[in-house]
């Protein structure tokens, strides 16, 4: 298949050594359709535990579509076929419990979306829904997750203030704190810094370095510097296909595919 300048079948996808590396999540023949439009093709990717994997590519290349399929946020708008294996279960099956799955596979979105509640309630709300009533325990989790998102020092005195009063960068870190408060396994981040200024972006990136000690992170970004700064692995998406997947260092310094090379060097188009 050829589309534009590049051969979409000319791909290089890394495989992991299952003896040495623990796979947190993997997809098998994942296809995504919006109505009749085939938006993503043949996703066969594995994601290593406690690592950061970046998904890069131009807008419309299918990277967000792919990411949002992983915790079934696209259920209402798209048809997703194929398998998504997590802990030996195909979580793309109709039969699984979506809610319990999403508690394990959390998500941070492109634009900060705190609830119009206080900072503290933003974090405790879902916990309370989950049946945690003990005030002391809730307070502990609030502090721990805010520290985890590098926000604690900035907001510890204003926990009862409205979350909407925070700056964009703070709001996004609050959303990260809210996600990790659930104690997930995997964190999906959909261009978490696209609405933020450079300083806030740096803060979020620092947070991610800390987070990967405990979580497996998959992040979509259109910022290549960001991908090379924070990630261990990188997958390059183009026109709904994964063209190249490998160690971030290799992708950026020694790509195997012409399309990848053109993209990372800025000669794309």
């Amino acid at each position, binding site marked *: 298949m050829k589309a534009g300048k590049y051969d979409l079948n000319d791909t290089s996808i890394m495989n992991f050594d299952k003896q040495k590396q623990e796979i947190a999540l993997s997809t098998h023949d994942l296809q995504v359709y919006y109505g009749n439009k085939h938006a993503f093709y043949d996703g066969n990717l594995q994601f290593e535990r406690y690592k950061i994997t970046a998904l890069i590519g131009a807008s419309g290349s299918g990277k967000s579509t792919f990411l949002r399929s992983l915790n079934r946020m696209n259920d209402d708008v798209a048809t997703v076929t194929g398998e998504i294996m997590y802990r030996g279960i195909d979580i793309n099956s109709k039969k699984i419990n979506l809610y319990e799955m*999403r508690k394990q596979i959390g*998500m941070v979105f492109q634009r900060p979306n705190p609830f119009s509640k206080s900072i503290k309630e933003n974090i405790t709300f879902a916990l309370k829904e989950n049946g945690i009533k003990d005030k002391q325990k809730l307070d502990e989790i609030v502090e721990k997750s805010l520290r985890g998102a590098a926000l604690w020092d900035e907001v510890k005195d204003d926990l009862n203030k409205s979350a*909407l*009063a925070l700056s964009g960068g703070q709001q996004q870190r609050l959303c990260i704190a809210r996600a990790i408060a659930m104690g997930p396994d995997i964190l999906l981040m959909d261009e978490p810094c696209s609405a933020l200024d450079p300083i806030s972006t740096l803060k979020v990136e620092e947070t991610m370095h800390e987070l990967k000690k405990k979580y497996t992170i998959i992040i979509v970004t259109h910022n290549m510097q960001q991908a090379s700064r924070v990630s261990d692995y990188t997958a390059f998406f183009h026109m709904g296909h994964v063209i190249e997947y490998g160690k971030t260092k290799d992708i950026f310094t020694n790509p195997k595919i012409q399309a990848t090379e053109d993209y990372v060097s800025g000669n794309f188009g």
Partner: protein
Amino acid sequence: MNTKKVNKLALAVIKLIAAVVVVILAFLLGKILLSGLPHVSWHFLTTPSRSFTAGGGIGIQLFNSFYLLILTLLISFPLSLGAGIYLAEYAPKNRVTEGVRMAIEVLSSLPSVVVGLFGFLLFVVQFKMGFSIISGAIALTFFNLPLLTRNVEDSLNNVPKLQREAGLALGLSKWHTVTKIILPEALPGILTGIVLCAGRVFGEAAALIYTAGQSATNIDFSNWNPFDESSPLNLFRPAETLAVHIWKINSEGIMPDAEQISAGASAVLIVAVLIFNLSARYLGNRLYKRLTASK
């Protein structure tokens, strides 16, 4: 005439028309309030009406209007909330949904007298509920549902989709995402809509003539047992409202001071509607500010 003159003349006419509309409203309000308010007194607001002699009040009718309003909202709000949530959150995009929307649109454009007659046929006659406040409340619910449902749907749709995703991504059920996150954020819009609907219900008469009835039985305001026939809370007593009262005394023409009573009652009705309108605006603004406040 050249184009410049035509232009000037046309713009002047437009301004004149707008001015005339303002004058019409000013005249209406002035006429109603000036001719009505002098008749409004504490005595007028609290004493029962008289049929054949002058000097009656509108006490029972006023109470009935408020009681009916509250009952109507109690029935129609949960229903419209459910229906609005269905349309905004659950409705698939298909022909069935199209049909549902069309049904609601048709209901909203039905003449209120037809809705009232249906209530009369089904509840008053068929279910043998008689002319009663509950029949009236149900008829008004039908009349109220389409507007309230659309209002709930619009207010929910005004909350960004991202907020829904935030809830779902935390593993919350869709129902709790909607009821505990989206609904509170949509509340200012919903409340404004409710208060505006309240104004409409308060002034409605056509749907009530043959459901809640045209007689205001004497009620005993010291008896709050809703099962007792003379209790104000009794759901099965006929309950003429203020709006129906105005219509009745004008079409019967047996009350000697019908015109004064109507004027007074109209003034009370208008003041009530004004209060509903103003408080809707105030409430909406305030809640909106509170939700987005940076305190």
